[in-house]
């Protein structure tokens, strides 16, 4: 199988096709090359020179779907093709005259062979006046649309594929490309896939806002991870579908985190945090944007930074001290104890479905747990201002400001210092594709405690005074990093959602998968984006080329 389509899961050939290929190879296909004719809209048909109108040799009809036998070149219609096979033993494979597609008469179904398609495509290329290279170099997109001269094809890797119809057989969304495993580096590949397809990050790098050729750090010979990412983005969106090896990034990351520079399996979440951190460092320094975390304009913080509010209340006198801390992700405790939340239970009763299993953890359950009012232990007494001494207190977290991209990390790896053991929590966590974060906002959490009292907010409104419209709390999922297996020897896989379809990215292999597969997976990191970000991304993926205007989403954010 040619490497260029290794990520596509081609349907397996039927016995008849494999038998045919064993005996004749591609000679049969090649002998048909002279009969292929390229028409003005790029379609390839079979055109028999003497006979203008192909007819069924059994019933003379020309209006039905016609097939030409690979062996004897006789033409049969769909009603008589089975008869042809029965009368002529071994004449199993035929070609659809109108569409140039393979058909197995014995299986009464269409079959697929990349080598056949290669020959058809090379004819299309010739038809378009482009020079044809041998199979391995040609990566083409089969287009049934007219004016194919508009879409360019890859030969080598010099041109960019920009198919007009995104639903075509061979076209995956732009930017979808496998990543080679360089030795237990699936932890890195998984995170990279999620980041490459995060709209704000994608737009940032593709619009050249960190150009490796112009980077001051690089010109000084310093290490620059954003530059390595620039290379990766360019490679991912080049249109080349052969799996890519992110060796430079791995090497650079090793140089930054020498303690993690082994071929051992690392933690994906740890890599994620350290990578974002490096980007912030490099970006902040080179662009002098580094102020304090809250106002930092580097791409890491623009995309992922949110604000957490922590209220510590003295249980004796009730006075509360509030602090704010920025965050770039939220780590959630996964405990079978934080099972269903009351919201889930109510929802299920509404729909008449079975009552939710009390012990099955859900994402909302974890978020509820995260924002619960937690009584701090007697050994955690804090100094109460009004009481004047150390008192027992309770603490409650809530989200003051939501980020553009929300990364929720499920703590599946438990490291116990006392027992000096680590274990992995395998329990399934139910999570939604659409997430409304309003119940976890400070306004809601504090509101629940104090009702509508204004003073509880310390003068904060529900919205940021800077934005014109209220930031939405509606999020849509765009990537899921899953971990399967055991602590030491597990495997990371990422599921990406592009234009409503799910794709599984397992190192070098990419295929489209059904929703159910993603819902049922063991999630480790969930990447949500504000719905307006997703909506904008939808539009962007429909364009042929990402123009500079579309690439600067922050102007309209």
């Amino acid at each position, binding site marked *: 199988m040619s490497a260029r389509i290794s990520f596509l899961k081609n349907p397996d050939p039927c016995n008849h096709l494999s038998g045919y290929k064993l005996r004749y190879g591609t000679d049969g296909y090649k002998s048909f090359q002279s009969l292929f004719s390229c*028409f003005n*809209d790029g379609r390839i048909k079979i055109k028999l020179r003497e006979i*203008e109108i192909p007819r069924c040799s059994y019933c003379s009809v020309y209006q039905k*779907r016609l097939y030409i036998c690979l062996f004897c070149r006789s033409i049969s219609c769909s009603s008589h093709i089975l008869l042809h096979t029965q009368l002529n033993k071994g004449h199993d494979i035929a070609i659809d005259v109108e569409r140039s597609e393979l058909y197995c008469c014995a299986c009464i*179904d269409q079959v697929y062979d990349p080598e056949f398609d290669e020959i058809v495509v090379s004819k299309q290329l010739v038809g378009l006046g482009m020079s044809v290279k041998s199979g391995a170099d040609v990566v083409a997109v089969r287009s049934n649309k*007219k004016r194919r001269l508009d879409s360019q094809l890859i030969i080598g890797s010099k041109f960019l594929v920009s198919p007009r119809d995104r639903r075509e057989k061979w076209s995956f969304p732009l930017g979808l490309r496998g990543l080679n495993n360089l030795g237990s580096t699936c932890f890195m590949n998984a995170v990279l896939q999620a980041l490459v397809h995060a709209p704000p990050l994608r737009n940032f790098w593709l619009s050249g806002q960190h150009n490796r050729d112009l980077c001051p750090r690089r010109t000084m010979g310093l290490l620059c991870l954003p530059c390595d990412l620039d290379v990766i983005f360019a490679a991912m969106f080049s249109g080349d579908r052969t799996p890519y090896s992110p060796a430079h990034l791995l090497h650079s990351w090793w140089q930054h985190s020498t303690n993690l520079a082994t071929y051992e399996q690392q933690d994906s979440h740890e890599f994620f945090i350290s990578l974002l951190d490096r980007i912030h460092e490099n970006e902040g320094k080179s662009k002098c944007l580094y102020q304090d975390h809250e106002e930092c304009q580097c791409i890491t913080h623009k995309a992922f930074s949110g604000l957490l509010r922590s209220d510590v209340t003295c249980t004796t006198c009730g006075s509360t001290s509030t602090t704010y801390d920025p965050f770039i992700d939220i780590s959630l405790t996964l405990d079978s104890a934080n099972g269903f939340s009351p919201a889930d239970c109510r929802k299920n009763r509404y729909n008449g479905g079975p009552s939710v299993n009390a012990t099955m953890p859900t994402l909302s359950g974890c978020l509820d747990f995260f924002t619960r009012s937690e009584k701090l232990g007697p050994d955690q007494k804090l100094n109460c201002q009004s009481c004047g001494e150390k008192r027992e207190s309770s603490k409650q977290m809530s989200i003051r400001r939501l980020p553009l991209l929300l990364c929720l990390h499920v703590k599946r790896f438990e490291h116990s210092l006392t027992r000096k053991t680590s274990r992995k929590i395998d329990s399934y966590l139910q999570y939604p594709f659409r997430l409304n974060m309003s119940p976890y906002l400070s306004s809601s959490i504090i509101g629940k405690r104090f009702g509508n009292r204004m003073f509880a907010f310390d003068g904060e409104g529900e919205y940021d005074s800077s934005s014109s419209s209220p930031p939405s709390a509606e999020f849509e999922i765009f990537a899921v990093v899953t971990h399967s297996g055991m602590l030491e020897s597990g495997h990371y896989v990422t599921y990406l959602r592009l234009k409503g379809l799910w794709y599984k990215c397992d190192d070098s292999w990419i295929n489209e998968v059904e929703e159910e597969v993603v819902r049922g997976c063991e999630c480790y990191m969930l990447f949500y984006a504000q719905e307006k970000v997703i909506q904008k991304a939808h539009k962007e993926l429909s364009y042929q080329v990402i123009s500079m205007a579309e690439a600067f989403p922050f102007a309209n954010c």
Partner: protein
Amino acid sequence: MKHSVNRPPTPDKDDAAEGFEKDEVTLREIINVKLVESGEKENLMELVRDRLVECGWKDEMRIACREHVKKKGRKDVTVDELIRVITPKGRASVPDSVKAELLNRIQNFIVSAALCV
């Protein structure tokens, strides 16, 4: 017995219809040949294809196919079966405007072809 053998046979009603149909078939064939020879058939095919995509018919068919496959299961469906199931739906849902346009084009073609003969 009276010999009515010399009387020409009364034309059967069905025979007449059959004859007319046969003529129609040959006429249809002639038109088809002319369309193919002149290349107009290809243009018309392209036109129809474009119109059906524009009005969303192609997407509707794709959804219908997907649903059928979802129902039957991916392994159990053949292309032939899909064709068999979807074709009636497809034919029924072609918008009248597309049919009208196509008819118009063919009429114009016939007129111009007849004039050139």
